């Protein structure tokens, strides 16, 4: 009897070992092993030396990507997943994390940027004992978006061989950075001018907004004295154009503490939030009138300048500015009622999206901003 049990045990063990070998070979065939030492960006992010990584013990965790990742209808699920991803890689006990993208069949560019930035942070701060692996998505369209947006090149992974070849869209790759440099913003905008022309004043306002975003990251976004795993001063900038309809979108993201958190450092703002002003209303206030945590009137003018680009676009052209930070989600459009909304799970950092659509108004019949009319939100979510 004992002999039989041992035999069975041995067989089970052998099967387990074989299964592990097969999985390793399968992943090797896909050639998607994430390499933490090869973050192929042009600059080196500033790392917080005070942070000490959590040491994993054993096991493997599989993180299944949701079917849809976007900041419209699935915003809470998307933020929840991104948070889960960070927690598993940085604080989880497993020595191996498999990022299973197979089920993912739609992703918007802004989500892809946040995903890339989160992975870059995790690669920088995870324990050396932890290994990151991944699978490619089944959907060629998603593979194409992730390839175009620079997802694979940012992480130094080969792009999937089955990514769709033809697309009317012309993406620009993510541009990460950690200093205020007008040349980078100019390079990004110039790239789009090959297909879409901007009015000279609108161009100036857009560039001013992007430069101000970079400067804001330096001034407010990151806690410099903390022990959190932050890429200090790091920001990600990207954009897209859809040549077929002349649609343009720009995205700016940082992983800082978020605008509402920063503003609440000021007592007057804190009191306002205690009497009922939520994060979204704070963002609205910041965009429309300007608000700062500092005493001087000279500060707090950056945020109002973000909407100037939208104000300068010609009549008949649809467009809006959207700001998501912590629990606030606020959209601004020249001719529409503003609609601050609250998200359930806070987004760590600040995401700004400028989106313009030359042939379509973005205001619905009730005078509200119609986010669904924007390519950034729908056309790319295949």
């Amino acid at each position, binding site marked *: 009897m004992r002999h039989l049990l041992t035999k069975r045990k041995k067989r089970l063990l052998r099967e387990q070992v074989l299964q592990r070998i097969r999985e390793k070979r399968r992943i090797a065939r896909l050639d998607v092993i994430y390499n933490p030492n090869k973050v192929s960006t042009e600059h080196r992010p500033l790392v917080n030396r005070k942070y000490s990584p959590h040491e994993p013990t054993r096991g493997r965790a599989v993180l299944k990507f949701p079917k849809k990742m976007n900041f419209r209808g699935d915003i809470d699920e998307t933020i929840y997943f991104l948070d889960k991803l960070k927690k598993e890689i940085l604080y989880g006990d497993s020595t191996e994390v498999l990022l299973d993208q197979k089920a993912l069949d739609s992703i918007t560019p802004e989500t892809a940027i946040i995903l890339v930035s989160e992975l870059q942070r995790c690669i920088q701060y995870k324990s050396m004992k932890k290994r990151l692996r991944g699978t490619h998505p089944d959907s060629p369209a998603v593979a194409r978006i992730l390839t175009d947006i620079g997802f694979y090149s940012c992480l130094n992974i080969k792009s999937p061989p089955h990514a769709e070849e033809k697309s009317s869209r012309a993406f620009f790759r993510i541009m990460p950075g950690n*200093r205020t*440099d007008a040349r980078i913003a100019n390079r990004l905008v110039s790239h789009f001018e090959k297909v879409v022309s901007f009015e*000279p004043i609108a161009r100036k*306002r857009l560039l001013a907004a992007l*430069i101000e975003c970079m400067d804001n990251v330096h001034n407010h976004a990151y806690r410099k004295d903390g022990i959190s795993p932050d890429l200090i001063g790091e920001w990600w900038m990207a954009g897209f154009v859809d040549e077929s309809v002349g649609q343009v979108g720009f995205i700016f993201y940082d992983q800082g503490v978020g605008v509402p958190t920063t503003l609440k450092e000021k007592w007057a703002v804190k009191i306002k939030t205690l009497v009922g002003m939520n994060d979204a209303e704070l963002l609205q206030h910041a965009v429309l009138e300007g608000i700062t945590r500092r005493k001087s009137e*000279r*500060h707090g003018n*950056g945020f109002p*300048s973000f909407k100037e680009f939208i104000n300068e676009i010609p009549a008949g052209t649809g467009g809006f500015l959207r700001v998501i930070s912590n629990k606030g989600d606020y959209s601004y459009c020249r001719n529409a009622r503003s609609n601050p909304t609250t998200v359930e799970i806070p987004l760590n950092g600040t995401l700004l999206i400028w989106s313009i659509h030359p042939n379509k108004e973005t205001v619905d019949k009730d005078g509200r901003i119609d986010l669904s009319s924007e390519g950034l939100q729908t056309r790319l979510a295949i």
Partner: protein
Amino acid sequence: MSTKHDCFYNVAKEFSMFPGGRLKEHGPDSGEEFRDDILIPLFEECDLLTIDLTGTITYGASFLDESFGELGKRYGLAAVKNKLKLIANDDPMLVDTIWEKVRIASKEYK
């Protein structure tokens, strides 16, 4: 006796086509750099200072505040108005924006 005269300075040609952010530590061609290396020395040296802002890609709000705003804080609105002349042929709003920044910052003038 110091020699005083009228000065003309073109930002795009002589400083940078790509003005950056607020402080030197933030990146190249910052407002602080422009203020310390160009604006204040010229302001103190010249009787009338004309700054031509035409030709750059843009100016961020922080750059303008750190350079021209600081001028208002240090010398006061009246002194700046007497000495400084601004030209911006490609952005008519820019001159007004700068004067507004000088006005706000001059409240901190002691």
